């Protein structure tokens, strides 16, 4: 869990997301190395799921591509092991309850710990159900990241007081995807988090442009970008590494300014 503290040590954190195995795991491995080089402070790796209900169309399609390419949880663990030989950047998995539960939560988190995954983000395991994962997370020292949403309201204090690592602030209603406008009063959400616990907050869902990132970074400790990057992967396929690196450079610069 120590690596998670480093995420917010270099000013505002830039946190990119890619779906592991899209278009294949060799490219994902290169993407991680290049994004780290370009200034990413934490990298989220999506373990593809057949039915990602919190995902918009862009990441749904990425999950479909990754699964069609034969990506499995075990192959992703192998890739993370290879990455860990070269890099010390904090890494998180983002996936759904079922791939973890069916793999066996204990075995899954033991593997996370052994290959150097620092945190997991599981959007369909809310506060009330975290008993499903938390014991194994604690046993193996992997942070279980809490999410808060624009609808969380009075739940924010309860969730934030027990949060670990950082709080993932969902910027908008709905699923992941690029949005032209973010209207939620996120500053208010973050204020409620900080009252409950002094813990870093990162904003995700909908952010794609440097301008949006810069605005969000003024009120939060970090910004998370998924669909905008996955779109580049979709567009450039096996040639996506360069465009994604350039994008990450640009985004990190925009929030550091």
């Amino acid at each position, binding site marked *: 869990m120590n690596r998670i503290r480093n995420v917010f040590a270099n000013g505002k954190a830039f946190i990119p997301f890619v779906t592991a195995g899209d278009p294949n795991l060799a490219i994902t491995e290169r993407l991680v190395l290049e994004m780290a080089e370009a200034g990413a402070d934490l990298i989220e790796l999506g373990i593809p799921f057949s*039915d990602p209900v919190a995902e918009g169309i862009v990441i749904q399609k990425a999950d479909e591509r990754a699964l069609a390419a034969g990506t499995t949880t075990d192959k992703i663990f192998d890739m993370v092991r290879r990455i860990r030989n070269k890099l010390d950047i904090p890494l998180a998995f983002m996936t759904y309850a079922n*791939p973890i*539960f*069916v793999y066996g939560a204990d075995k899954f988190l033991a593997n996370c710990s052994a290959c150097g995954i620092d945190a997991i983000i599981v959007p*369909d395991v*809310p506060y009330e*159900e975290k008993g499903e994962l938390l014991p194994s997370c604690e046993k193996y020292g992997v942070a279980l990241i809490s999410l808060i949403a*624009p609808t969380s309201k009075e*739940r924010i204090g309860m969730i934030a007081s027990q949060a670990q690592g950082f709080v993932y602030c969902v910027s908008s209603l709905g699923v992941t995807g690029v949005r032209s406008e973010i209207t939620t009063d996120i500053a208010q959400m973050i204020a409620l988090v900080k009252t409950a616990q002094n813990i870093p907050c990162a904003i995700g869902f909908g952010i794609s442009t440097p301008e949006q990132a810069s605005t969000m970074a003024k009120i939060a400790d970090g910004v998370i970008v998924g669909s905008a990057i996955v779109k580049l992967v979709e567009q450039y396929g096996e040639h996506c590494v360069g465009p994604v690196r350039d994008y990450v450079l640009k985004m990190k610069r925009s929030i550091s300014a």
Partner: protein
Amino acid sequence: MQKGRFGIHGGQFVPETLMNAVIELEKAYAFYSKDAHFNRELDDLLKNYAGRPSLLYHAEKMTRDLGGAKIYLKREDLNHTGSHKINNVLGQILLAKKMGKSRVIAETGAGQHGVATATAAALMGMKCDVYMGREDTQRQALNVFRMELLGATVHSVTSGTQTLKDAVNETMREWTNRIEDTHYVLGSVMGPHPFPTIVRNFQSVIGKEVRQQILKAEGKLPDALLACVGGGSNAIGLFYEFIGDDSVALIGCEAAGLGVDTPKNAATVANGTLGIFHGMKSYFCQDEYGQIAPVYSISAGLDYPGIGPEHANLHDTGRAQYVSVTDTEAVEAFEYLSKTEGIIPAIESAHAVAYAQKLAPTMKKDQILVVNLSGRGDKDVAAIAKYRGVKIDE
């Protein structure tokens, strides 16, 4: 802390964005389910709009033909809109209205739940959007037009396998997008708490009527109850009233598609393993990595890779038994009931009829078997013709 459990099953595995919505629903239901005025309104709708109570019909020819147990059919097919789905929908939409919602959304497989939702939404003046897998919009084209006729907007879902599970995914996504004015009318005893409990309670009218009707007709309880199981709402609606009566066997019929040993089936209890999906812990057809399997059945309403959490628990405890019925057996039963009793059952319900054909002859003549006819088969006629290689001009 863990709410809505049936043994180890159930729960509330939804994104944080939806948590307050399910909590609000739970509170509203807890209040209105005890509210005399709400219950009077619902009873009135069930009686004067849906046509309840539905008949419990003694299938005399079928009984004689099979030569065993005395067979009764619970005629949910005679309800307004042609299936049991209306029982749940009237309850949920009335509840949504009390909660101040102005719009309802629903998933549908066969289209029966979508039609029922569109119907009740029209009646109660609600906007209605229905999500349906593209493959099902083709299998059940007539129901798509029916929903549109009723004023609903039908969204064809092109993600994943383009069937019922994908329709549920898409409806959940839409709910996270728009919660304030929108209620998600879930169509079966599945999903996150409180849906499995709410839907079961609204459907339990089926079993309550059966108890009264059979006691009046026979002066004793039935020996076995049969129902088809997709998510499990018509089955639990029939079973629930009898769970405490150990002498009554409860049997759910799952869709075995081309066979439980083939990759093309939807037999969750036979082939599924424990998982967490669509808001609940239960049994699912899936692979070793927890990827949900692309299931198959000729019946769009049973073409679902999971089963409601209360059924999963009834299976664990052994209180209910789950059997599988293939496409071929269901189609034969569809034709059998049509010719024998002059009743065309929904292809879903035909799965229960098919098992009745096997079970009844093994029972004694003084035993009673009740089969839930969850819906009528008009919607399936074209598909059966196609299955038999008959061309029909549309």
